[in-house]
């Protein structure tokens, strides 16, 4: 993510909501999302992955918050399951905006679907508008494609957390960071190898070799960890690149530690 100064406060001038609209200004469609939510996600959440959620109270009921999770699986199921968890378990169900790579906006078909399902390109300005101006929940995967394309042998090993752009975004929005540790997605669709030629031909971000054409029924555990407030470091902490890196590293370490704890407790990949 590129460095960007926070824009002046224009929160009072956000567009009014027109109730007759089918799609939000971000391109999110209540109808398409609702359909997925009631069918595929419902099935995956309750019966296929049998998701168990812990610490849902750490997701704030109001105001913006940046949710940070580990990322895995060839066709990552983690984002939709986290969104579903917040809708199902939270005392005040809220919509979650997932940040996705710019690649998705440029690829036919995905471009249409991902934004309808609540995906927003991971541009710092987008994250800032959502977090600060619209006070929404935003989910980021700082590992990006490095997380999803990693092979099965590297499972649950967190990759580099970008350049800490997500910390800067949270600091500028003065929104708390909620780390999330998610176990199960690695086994749901593991990657054993990559086919470089097909990747080139299809123009996708990667073309993996996976054991089955769909998700394997791994048991999911989602643990929301204690929020890290970002307004504790005085004015404009984002200019202190050292601090940004330290915080990013701390978030990463917390998730990694929690993953190890959860994996140690897990007796079976499929039954939990």
């Amino acid at each position: 993510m590129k460095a960007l100064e926070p824009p002046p406060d224009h929160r009072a001038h956000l567009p009014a909501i027109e109730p007759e609209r089918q799609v939000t200004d971000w391109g999110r469609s209540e109808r398409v999302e609702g359909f997925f939510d009631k069918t595929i996600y419902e099935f995956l959440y309750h019966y296929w992955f049998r998701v168990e959620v812990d610490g849902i109270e750490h997701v704030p009921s109001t105001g913006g918050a940046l949710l940070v999770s580990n990322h895995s699986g060839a066709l990552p199921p983690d984002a939709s399951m986290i969104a579903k968890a917040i809708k199902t378990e939270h005392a005040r169900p809220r919509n979650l905006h997932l940040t996705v790579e710019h690649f998705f906006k440029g690829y036919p078909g995905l471009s249409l679907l991902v934004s309808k399902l609540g995906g927003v390109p991971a541009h710092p300005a987008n994250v800032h508008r959502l977090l600060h101006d619209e006070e929404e929940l935003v989910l980021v995967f700082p590992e990006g494609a490095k997380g999803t394309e990693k092979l099965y042998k590297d499972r649950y090993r967190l990759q580099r957390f970008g350049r800490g752009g997500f910390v800067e975004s949270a600091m500028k929005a003065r929104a708390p960071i909620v780390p999330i540790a998610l176990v199960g997605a690695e086994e749901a669709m593991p990657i054993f190898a990559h086919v470089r030629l097909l990747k080139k031909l299809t123009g996708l971000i990667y073309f993996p070799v996976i054991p089955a054409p769909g998700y394997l029924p791994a048991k999911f555990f989602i643990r929301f960890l204690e929020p890290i407030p970002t307004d504790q470091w005085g004015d404009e902490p984002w200019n202190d690149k050292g601090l940004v890196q330290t915080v990013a590293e701390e978030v990463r370490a917390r998730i990694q530690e929690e993953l190890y704890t959860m994996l140690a407790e897990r007796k079976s990949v499929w039954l939990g």
Partner: protein
Amino acid sequence: MSRRVLITGLSSYWGGRLAQELEKDEAVEVLIGVSTDDPSLPLERTEFVRVGTHHALLRRIVHAAEIDTVIDTRLIVDSATAPPRVAHEQNVIGTMNILAACGGPDSPVTKVVFKSSAHYYGCERDDPGFFTEEMRRPHPPRTRLESDIVEADDAVRGFAERNPKVTVTTLRFCNGLGPDLHNSHSRLLGLPAVPGILGFDPRYQFIHEDDIVGALHYAAKTELPGIYNAAPDGVLVLSEVASLLGKLYAPLLPPWGTSLGTAAAGLVGVKVPDEVRQQLRYGRGLDNRKLKQSGFRFGLTTRETVQAFAAAQRLKPLRESGEAPYRYEREVEEFLRWSPSVRRDE
């Protein structure tokens, strides 16, 4: 405070509409319009001078009439409306000449309003969801029209920096839409089905023609230095636009080799210029909050603009046989304005 206003590009739709609007404004004392072609709309007290963008001639007019406000509405923002050479001449050279005519230490001009375009930001995969005024495009311009617009917009910014005493307002408009507006998008949305690129559903903002005129008028009468995005509330995806129009969204253009597809569409009479092709793929959103904060209120949202356009489309077959289009006749206009025989209400 009374104003002495010069409108460039009077023959364009914007020039004409703005002049009609300013004629009603009591504060506007003198209203002069220049363009190479005849005005296309009937005007009452606007004085028309047939002159292009020759800076020496413009400068003489500006000084002689002691013009304090110059409103530049000429910018060509749709490459289907003019050949590239003409567009370049208008957008880059024309803007340069007009700025040259307004500048200088002894210039009476205290205010310049420049009608720019959201094509300044381009349309790319890596764009933010909402462009704010200080953002630059992530990649260099792809089309000739876009690079011309960037050059013109930058020239105006440079002028503002060199002439701190002049209030320079740049309004970057999103795509315009309205009953009387003819551009690539109104043509595409007027088709029996709304064409698109397979696998894409781009985000769009449409500003109503009245809001464009309103924003220009607002900029002319208020102190509004700087750059402002002029786009109404609401960003719609193209499929929603189609459903508001009661039409089918038909993504018939191929996602790969789209330029070949648009070339083929051109053969059957559906013109999709390069900048529109980019928009059909990636779409664009502008953050309009700076202009709203300054006090301007948009009359219609994007959704209402599309609905107004849909209503006009339905009425079109019924209205077309109506009155004859306006034709400018210099002798008649001059007689009406200056002849002592004409009775004028004091």
